[in-house]
């Protein structure tokens, strides 16, 4: 009837819950089976409750103790990986922001086509993209050949550090992640209320002023999300370092992989894995507090 108040949500809830439960059951079951259970298994390996070989010790915290309290070279390796991932994440966000800005606020009708072009490399094999860098950066690669041709280097003295170094790992990871990270920034910027930007200009703000005082603060959520999107996977990275990193590019993920596949010390490998998981969870909590994720609305 006209003017009648809408039925309150709480009155509708009892009828809706079976459907809600039904819809949620699939994702919850998936998360439980393929996320929580594997983590529990790894945790069990880390304390010796499960073991690869029947001769291994039972429940014990010896590897946890050696890693956290003893002089473990792996803790230094962890901080080295944090430094490399931080470098990658910061540079990726700095490079991806202009891309996201251009797509959201400048490209106009062509933005989705351009977006497709930017993410097109994801259609190719990851390994192929990494190996392509070996062709570019090797001693006889494209870059060194160019430097020799223009006389900046000699054939006997190419730039060695371009390939198989920390620099290579950081460069390749940046290349891989920039297109991906442009997406959350693009989404946040595209959803901005343009009238706010117009109001800033109408009130006399310069273009830079409007960007710095209006656009940039409103896009911080996207930047935070982008940073986390890169930092979490790169801190555990091991494929790129093993392909192009050399000994210098060795990361924490390589140590974990080595314990499981070569060292066959699954307890130690599980300790390193669980530690990495806890570190990443802590980071998400801190960043979540910073970007106030609770206030993010679904577009």
């Amino acid at each position, binding site marked *: 009837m006209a003017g009648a108040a809408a039925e309150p949500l709480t009155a509708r809830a009892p009828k809706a819950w079976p459907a809600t439960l039904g819809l949620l059951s699939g994702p919850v079951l998936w998360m439980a089976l393929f996320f929580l259970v594997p983590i529990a298994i790894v945790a069990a390996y880390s304390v010796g409750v499960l073991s690869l070989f029947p001769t291994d010790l039972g429940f014990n915290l010896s590897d946890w103790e050696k890693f956290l309290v003893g002089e473990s070279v792996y803790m230094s390796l962890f901080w080295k990986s944090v430094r490399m991932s931080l470098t990658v994440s910061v540079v990726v966000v700095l490079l991806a922001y202009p891309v996201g800005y251009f797509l959201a606020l400048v490209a106009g009708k062509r933005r989705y086509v351009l977006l497709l072009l930017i993410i097109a490399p994801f259609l190719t094999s990851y390994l192929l993209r990494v190996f392509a860098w070996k062709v570019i950066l090797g001693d006889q690669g494209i870059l060194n050949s160019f430097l020799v041709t223009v006389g900046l280097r000699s054939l006997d003295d190419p730039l060695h550090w371009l390939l198989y170094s920390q620099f290579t790992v950081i460069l390749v990871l940046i290349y891989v992640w920039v297109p991906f990270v442009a997406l959350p920034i693009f989404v946040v910027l595209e959803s901005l209320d343009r009238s706010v930007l117009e109001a800033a200009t109408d009130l006399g703000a310069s273009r830079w002023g409007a960007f710095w005082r209006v656009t940039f603060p409103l896009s911080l959520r996207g930047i935070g999300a982008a940073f986390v999107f890169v930092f979490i996977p790169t801190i555990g990275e091991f494929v790129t370092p093993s392909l192009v990193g050399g000994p210098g590019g060795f990361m924490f993920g390589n140590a974990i992989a080595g314990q499981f596949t070569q060292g*066959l010390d699954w307890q130690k490998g599980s300790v390193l894995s669980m530690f990495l998981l806890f570190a990443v969870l802590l980071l998400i909590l801190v960043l979540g507090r910073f970007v106030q994720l609770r206030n993010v609305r679904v577009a």
Partner: protein
Amino acid sequence: MAGDFNSLLLRRLGRRDFMRYAAVLGGAGVLAACKKAETTPTGPVGTGVQRPPIEDEPGILQVFDWDAYGDGQAGYGDEALWKAYAKAFPGLEPEFTKFKDDDSGYAKVAQGDRYDIVHPCGYRWGDWVGLDVLQPWDTSLIASFADLNPTLTAPGQFDGKQYFITTDWGFAAPMYRSDLVEPEEDSWALLWDERYADRISWWDSLNMLVVAAYFSGIPDPWAMTDEELDQMKGFLISKIGLVRTLWPIDPSEDFINEDVWITYAWPSHWVNAAIWNGLEDTVYMEPKEGRTSWYCGFALFADTENYYHAHEYVNAWASAGAAEWLLNNYGYGHTNTAVDLDKVDPGIVSTFALDDPSVLEEPRSHVERPIARRDVYNDVWEEVKAAAV
């Protein structure tokens, strides 16, 4: 009908009828015996094991092996290693699963993966037997077994049974480009020669601790004490900054591209560089401390359903024909002593001294042997890598 049957039973049999019925019964008996023989267990004599005949086996072998050791995917033509098997069983190509190295292959089986055949190397054979997933071979079913070098097949015996058929062997040694590198002497020291910083490649393996130990004069590199391991760890950490790459599978690409000039190498890497890629200045060193050598062989899983096919496959791999291919294409030794070295590339014969039996003996070569504290060695090696800056 009943009446006829009764009349048959009751009537007297004449001689002709008797002979006729005896022939029928005798023929039936022969047929029954033949059929019984087909399904009678044909396992090894004395074992009493019941096995279906080969034609009743599924036939598609599941082979767990090194890369390019028969799967043919790299384009090297390595399917030739089981050529005789392919000829005998057309259309029954094996399915290959590859492992990166012995340790990862062993880990997969330890956690439950099963195949028909696996091809591990000798230093872990005791561990494989300890997994209790293998069964011994029946060497009477492997015609080529008689031609195999008994010195190398002996390590494949456990409790008097042949658990491993040793087929291939090779070396590990420094390899370098003589047009770019001038070693001070033939020594493992080339792998940490500061003059060639950033031009060196090591194998990503605890074997680097062993060769460092031979260089350092450690009495038994395969059974180092904690102090000796600590010493080698410190030594390698001090030298790893000179290393450009740690190769997990193959250093050939970097060596051929001249991204590295010196590498820890197997004979196949020399063949790849010197013969397939024409880098004639590639030298496979015989260091004064001695090369290390390895041997590998086939094992049979206990729950295989392709028992006889597995024997036939290994027989093909162990043949002189396979030996010739392996020598010519990978430069690896083969345990088949009937191979004609005149059919092998002379460059390969001379580089690896295949015609000199002493090449595999101490002190020229140190055969890889089980490391009792392998887990400790692995921990130390992982710490060396983790300490690289």
